[in-house]
């Protein structure tokens, strides 16, 4: 079963990106053979709705699980509905995160670990003017 790891770079030695919706790449990888494909995240620069769009990107690759640092409420709901497991709290390189996953050292979550928009990295709050949309 393939998994998707949110990553700051396009290979297994890249650091895990703690943000799901706004990560640079998804590494779609077989945790056993380590055969992988790097998919650039089209939502990295988008203004809105990146979490649910990221869920669709990894969902369309047929993964059974997502490995990331944090996950917000919208992608959590989308991934759950599609039966995709979510493992949060991953760090280090993508390869190290896969090791942790294989050895059962990552936490499977069933509810969001952060609030929506946290991936914007400006303190994670709901600052009044920042997230107003057009």
């Amino acid at each position, binding site marked *: 079963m393939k998994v998707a790891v949110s990553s700051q770079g396009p290979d297994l030695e890249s650091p895990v990106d703690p943000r799901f919706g706004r990560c640079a790449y998804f590494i779609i990888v077989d945790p056993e053979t380590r055969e992988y494909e790097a998919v650039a995240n089209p939502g990295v620069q988008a203004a*809105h709705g990146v979490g649910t769009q990221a869920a669709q990107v990894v*969902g369309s690759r047929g993964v059974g699980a997502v490995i990331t640092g944090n996950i917000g409420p919208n992608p959590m709901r989308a991934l759950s509905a599609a039966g995709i497991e979510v493992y949060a709290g991953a760090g280090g390189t993508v390869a190290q995160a896969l090791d942790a996953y294989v050895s059962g050292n990552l936490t499977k979550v069933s509810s969001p670990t952060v609030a929506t928009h946290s991936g914007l990295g400006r303190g994670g709050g709901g600052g009044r*003017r920042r997230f*107003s*949309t057009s």
Partner: protein
Amino acid sequence: MTTMTDRADRRVIISVASGKGGTGKTTLAVNLALALSAFHDVRLIDADVEEPNAHIFLRPDLEGSRTVELPVPEVDKDRCRFCGRCAEVCAYGAVTVIADSVLVFPELCHGCGGCTLLCPEKAVTERPRAIGVVEWGRAGEVAFVHGRLNPGEALVPPVTRAVKEFIRPGGVTIIDAPPGTACPAVAAVSGSDYCVLVTEPTPFGLNDLALAVEMVRKLGLPAGVVINRFDLGDRRVEDYCARQRLPVLGRIPFDRKLAEAYARGRTAVDDLPGWRDRFSALGREILERASNGRRPRISDVSDP
């Protein structure tokens, strides 16, 4: 009060905006509305729908309200074949299709209707979702309108557009815009005849004024500047305005009495001697510039 200067087919729309928050937009908008209402039919529209506050100073008697709704999709899961066309067309990720699951995220939906239109199975229908409210009434001579976005909602412009539907032919409409230069501010100032940018002589005031000037230039709006607390800070805002050929329409001093009136929810025009005349003069200056800067509107052109 209608006078000779108000022709029924004439209307002037003044927006009051600022890059930076807390510079005095509402203070200016409310005082201008009160001062000009002695000479014109004045309508004040508080378009800061995330945090409306003009009502605190005008204390209007509200006469009516209406809910602002957005059409959001609902998917008939029996008809859906999970083709993903709806998700593909949605720019905001408000509809997602993963494997054989389709989900709608109403709070992400901008109500464009694309998914409904393009669903080949006709599985998508729309239902209205309330995102805010518009309330209107009168504060003495001033007609009053404001909008309120429901708590937790992020989508401001539909509520802004709903309050702006209350712009009427004739008279003077003053729009109190939200701070910033993002969609809520753009939605508020668009279509006005003149934009008054309120700022303060501080580094933050200058930085955000420059952003607001970029916004109004992009929108093609004639604009001038009011410097609040002009006697604090430095001269860099004045120098900037001179370089940019932006008229400085008024300078409001840092005055403890103004601050005290504000803190009590009172206005300078009503409470402090001399201020009605000063805001009347400023209002006339702005109206003059707004009328001169007006481009012809369809109604102007077609009127005999």
